[in-house]
């Protein structure tokens, strides 16, 4: 394990050093590092990796958003994929029917999804645990069925020819170009997620996760904060949905938003480690790469995936994030002890 994590240790140290200058510096550096990624991937002679990266980045946005509700605030939702659908459909309809440019349609879709987040989150005010899971499941599935049966929302043929984003005469009309868009969005998403975690709101969420009663005793407005968590995560889902819809070939269909996609998303969050922001990122990357590399074994792919899910929950409930955490904590602890013994000597 140590050997495996050794490269990360250097990276973590490097970025921690940068963070001492200003919080945003490591992000800017990372952003610059990531900009030439399509060229690097292209150099391998396989542009599909760029497409794969785009898909993963969209999933990262989703899972980081889901983590806010689930990891930070401790609310169980199975309706996140419905919000993703709302974002995708709203943005594409605005672009197709009203000719809105992507830059107007996407923010509008994010706002609409945020409002929908209130509805999906509403049950959380009264319900907990299993009941909340089922209520959100019902809401999420209802969204999908509504799309499936309403011709204006795509119905069975789906929404076609959603125009790609455009800046001046530069059109993001293939996935190589689209990478810059989704990468930027994902970076902003992750950064904001960290900011939220650090803010008073983030602390309120975590207080609710740890102990609802104690949180309310400490003056935290529990229902409002729960709703807020749902809304924030809905904003992420809306952005991810809009980005997915406008990505060439610009096609969405209700079966992109089924319960299987929701489970994949949950798997990403759980595999990465619930409550770890990086967990959502790592989970999205690992799950999607495993999925992509097992495509040719389609007849047993569900079986293996299912088993991974079951065994993961049984044997590694804290996810990869938990393992890394343990490693980092141990490392810091060792360091602390060394410092202590140095001081004693």
């Amino acid at each position, binding site marked *: 394990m140590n050997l495996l994590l050794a490269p990360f240790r250097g990276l973590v140290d490097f970025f921690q050093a940068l963070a001492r200058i200003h919080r945003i510096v490591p992000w800017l550096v990372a952003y610059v590092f990531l900009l030439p990624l399509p060229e690097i991937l292209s150099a391998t002679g396989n542009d599909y990796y760029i497409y794969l990266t785009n898909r993963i980045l969209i999933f990262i946005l989703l899972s980081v958003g889901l983590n806010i509700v689930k990891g930070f605030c401790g609310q169980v939702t199975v309706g996140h994929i419905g919000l993703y659908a709302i974002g995708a459909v709203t943005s594409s309809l605005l672009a197709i029917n009203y000719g809105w440019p992507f830059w107007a349609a996407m923010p509008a879709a994010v706002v609409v999804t945020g409002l929908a987040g209130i509805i999906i989150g509403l049950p959380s005010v009264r319900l907990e645990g*299993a009941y909340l899971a089922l209520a959100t499941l*019902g809401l999420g599935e209802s969204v999908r069925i509504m799309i499936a049966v309403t011709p204006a929302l795509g119905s069975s043929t789906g929404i076609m020819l959603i125009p790609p984003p455009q800046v001046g005469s530069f059109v993001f009309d293939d996935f190589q170009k689209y990478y810059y868009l989704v990468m930027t969005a994902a970076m902003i998403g992750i950064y904001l997620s960290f900011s939220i975690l650090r803010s008073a709101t983030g602390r309120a969420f975590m207080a609710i996760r740890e102990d609802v009663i104690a949180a309310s005793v400490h003056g935290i407005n529990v229902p409002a904060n729960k709703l807020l968590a749902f809304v924030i995560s809905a904003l992420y889902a809306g952005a991810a949905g809009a980005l997915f819809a406008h990505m060439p070939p610009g096609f969405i269909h209700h079966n992109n938003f089924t319960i299987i996609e929701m489970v994949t998303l949950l798997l990403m969050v759980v595999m990465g480690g619930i*409550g770890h922001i990086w967990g959502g990122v790592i989970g999205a990357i690992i799950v999607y790469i495993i999925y992509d590399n097992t495509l040719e074994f389609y*007849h047993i792919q*569900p079986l293996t995936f299912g088993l991974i899910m079951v065994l993961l929950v049984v044997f590694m409930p804290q996810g990869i994030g938990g393992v890394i955490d343990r490693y980092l904590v141990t490392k810091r602890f060792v360091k602390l002890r060394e410092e202590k013994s140095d001081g004693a000597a």
Partner: protein
Amino acid sequence: MDFDFTSLFAFILFGLTIGVVYGIVALGISLIYSGLDIVHFAHGEIYMFGAFFGLVFSEHMGVPYPLAILSAMVCTGLLGIVIERVFYRRLTRAGGGYTVAGMGMIICGFGMSVVLQNIAYLSWGADAEPFPVDLGEPFQFGDISLPKSYGLTAVIALLLMAVLHFFLKKTKIGLAVRAVAANKDIAFLMGINVPLMISLIFGLACALAAAAGVLIGPMQSVQVEMGYLMLMKAFAAAVVGGFGSLPGAIVGGLLVGIFENLGAAYISPNHKDIYAFLLLILVLMVRPSGLFGVEVRVKA
């Protein structure tokens, strides 16, 4: 669509006959929830397995239909016990609950459902299998005809409920099952073998789902993907009736059945599957413990 009472009666009748089936599956989900503290997302696949077992017994081995129901129930019950012992047991030991760690239960259930579905696909293929059971001419209520199989289903479903009710209320083991469902630690202290009872609960719930599968099989044919829709309806039924409540599950099932049929008939047929969810959400918002829930069980 013109309104007339014959049609209304027909729609309610359709709702009732399918509703009892939702009810038995819901009962299993409800039992598992109170026994193991998990919402069993793989129960739809258990139902599917039950139907396939029934099909194998009845069609391929020539066992008479009523006996096929019983055999399928036994087999599926055993399958359930194995699943519970091998996988879920480790999780319940690690502590249930639905917050951060409890997400695991949902993932685990889904994972299991994918695994079971894939196993069924590998063993029986993706084609839907016909499950013909000839029971003779349908019942006629004036202009409405109701296939005998639906009538039979309703009768058997009610019979199963009655047997279960008797078992839970009047026998010592049933009492122990209820004690385990209510509070495992105390049940332990009363000298009840809790792990055994949990297996029993799980097996029982799976057997009920299998019964539903074999009953519905002849009407809707048997297919690998049949579980999902039933699961959704049964979840709705279980919640509407109140998790853990036996009459609640059946009333919930009937309500979901009637509600969706009337909705499909008079509001819009496209949205049929939404009505169950609508009812679920309505009930949850108004009365979180369901119509028959005795206590609101909030998991920490």
